[in-house]
């Protein structure tokens, strides 16, 4: 039997939590998808096909090859507008040996702590939502033939309860919240949670710092690498994700705190979901984004060691460039300013660590023919001098993504989980202004491929590409 799990798409409740795909929304601190993969293992299914759509990269990064669950995971991509059933119907011969199919965002609720029963040979189990198949497990050839042929044959199908679990729909923030609370109140003991230590209703992950002055009132669940401060009061009915920080004297009860959230000092969180700086009332679905980072905030992801090396080398190189460019910039820049040949444009941009910075940049080249001096100014990258100063100030990386404008690019900024605004980017050698699509593609490409080698490539293309432009060289194409 093979499993096909449709992971694409995010219903409104998952989007409100900040997820592009429902599969990675955490329940009791673990992504929903993990419960399904664990179930596949318990049902002795080893071959799993994950059908990706929105959020594909994150799903792939999470599940990888499936070795962690003893599974062999392969991937397919489906257009977000396509019907997930079409994927199965394209190659029905692949699934005739038995199919476990998940089509909708469901939670596999185990009815007891015992592992689910083995699937019957030639048996069929079916769960429908809104009149359509949402989950099925079948090795009955007739049923599969009919289903894959476009029919919806429910005759002879059994309920999943016979196997020991029930696919449970998550339809709203309220049902998501209640599911989490049910888990923390005891149901989580039915599932394998690696690393968690359960005792007296409290499940604590790896590397959790709990000072003696913190007060814990079970039931509660705390994820890995989370830090509680002194005089915090946690519980009852609290789920805290991984990489969270709860500051002094904060009180948490009946709430769900998602991964990477900072809870400010002296706050009181009750009957709420908190996802980074987003505060949600599950009772009516109200979502409030808190602007004050000392109240609620996203915990900034720890830099990878390679990023640290990039930062050190980038800063050193920026210092060298500033020293080399200082005198020519002052001379040529002053001359250009005096003659009024060219002026730098000022703008507010998103900088590193959720700060803002003002940058000076040259207007686009298409604005008209430039004087020779101005062309020389750009070709020798002297216009980048103010940005290099921002690198030295820690506001920008030397090489990275195109800095995003405050207001105009806020939507893209929210979309980017990893943001490395750089003085030199894929766009630096180009003469035209990047549109949002190109910026998005470049930013995502850089976030995924960033490395010293990629930075070197950007640096060389930026500096020499511009120099080549002075002598009539072709403008570079988008790097990605």
């Amino acid at each position, binding site marked *: 039997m093979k499993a096909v799990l449709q992971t694409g798409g995010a219903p409104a409740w998952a989007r409100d939590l900040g997820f592009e795909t429902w599969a990675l929304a955490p329940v009791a601190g673990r992504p929903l998808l993990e419960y399904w993969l664990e179930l596949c293992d318990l049902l002795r299914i080893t071959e799993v096909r994950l059908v990706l759509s929105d959020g594909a990269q994150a799903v792939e990064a999470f599940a990888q090859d499936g070795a962690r669950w003893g599974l062999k995971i392969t991937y397919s991509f489906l257009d977000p507008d396509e019907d997930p059933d079409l994927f199965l119907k394209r190659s029905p011969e692949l699934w005739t040996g038995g199919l476990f199919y998940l089509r909708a965002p469901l939670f596999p609720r185990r009815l007891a702590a015992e592992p689910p029963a083995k699937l019957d040979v030639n048996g069929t189990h079916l769960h429908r939502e809104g009149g359509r198949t949402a989950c099925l497990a079948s090795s009955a050839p007739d049923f599969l033939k009919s289903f894959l042929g476009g029919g919806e044959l429910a005759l002879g199908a059994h309920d999943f309860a016979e196997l020991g679990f029930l696919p449970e729909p998550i339809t709203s923030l309220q049902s998501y919240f209640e599911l989490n609370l049910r888990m923390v109140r005891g149901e989580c003991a039915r599932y394998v949670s690696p690393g968690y230590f359960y005792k007296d209703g409290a499940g604590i992950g790896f590397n959790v710092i709990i000072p003696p002055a913190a007060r814990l009132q079970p039931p509660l669940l705390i994820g890995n690498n989370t830090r509680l401060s002194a005089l915090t009061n946690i519980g009852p009915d609290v789920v805290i994700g991984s990489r969270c920080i709860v500051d002094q004297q904060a009180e948490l009860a009946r709430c769900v705190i998602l991964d990477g959230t900072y809870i400010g000092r*002296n*706050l*009181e*969180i*009750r009957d*709420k979901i908190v996802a980074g700086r987003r*505060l949600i*009332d599950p009772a*009516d679905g*109200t979502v*409030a984004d*808190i*602007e*004050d980072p*000392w*109240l*609620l905030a996203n915990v900034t992801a720890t830099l990878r060691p390679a990023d640290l090396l990039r930062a050190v080398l980038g800063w050193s190189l920026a210092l060298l460039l500033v020293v080399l460019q200082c005198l020519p910039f002052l001379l040529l820049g002053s001359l250009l300013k005096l003659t009024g040949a060219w002026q730098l444009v000022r703008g507010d941009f998103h900088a590193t660590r959720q700060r803002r910075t003002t940058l000076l940049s040259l207007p686009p080249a298409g604005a008209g023919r430039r004087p020779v001096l101005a062309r020389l100014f750009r070709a020798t990258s002297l216009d980048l001098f103010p940005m290099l100063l921002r690198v030295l100030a820690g506001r920008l990386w030397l090489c990275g993504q195109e800095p995003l404008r405050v207001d105009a690019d806020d939507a893209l900024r929210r979309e980017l989980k990893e943001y490395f605004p750089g003085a030199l980017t894929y766009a630096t050698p180009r003469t035209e202004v990047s549109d949002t699509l190109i910026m998005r593609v470049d930013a995502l490409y850089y976030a995924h491929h960033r490395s010293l080698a990629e930075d070197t490539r950007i640096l060389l293309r930026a500096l020499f590409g511009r120099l080549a432009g002075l002598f009539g060289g072709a403008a570079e194409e988008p790097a990605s």
Partner: protein
Amino acid sequence: MGSTFEIKNEVGLVTLIGPLTAGQVDAFRAEFNDWQKSHETLRNVVLDCHGIDFMDSSGLGALIALLKRVSERGGDLKLARLPKKVRMVFEITRAYKIFQICDTVEEALQACR
């Protein structure tokens, strides 16, 4: 941020419209102080918050400063018609414990008598 000031049944009624954030609090505070100075006998104030579409901690700080100022005159400050998002900020910061929050302006005016 806009605000209107009026007196109803010897109770000051301040209506706030727009965001109440760091950029607006100084102007609002100055406006309120001027208005309060021109009505020296006025003690109790009701803040109609229905029009506040966004508030940050500076806005909350401004309301606490207002409460202090009104209390120093022996009066009381009551909030009416808090929008849900603003109410959530009051809940997590425990500000709901220091303000009396009413569902309607009439209720707040009644409570001031």
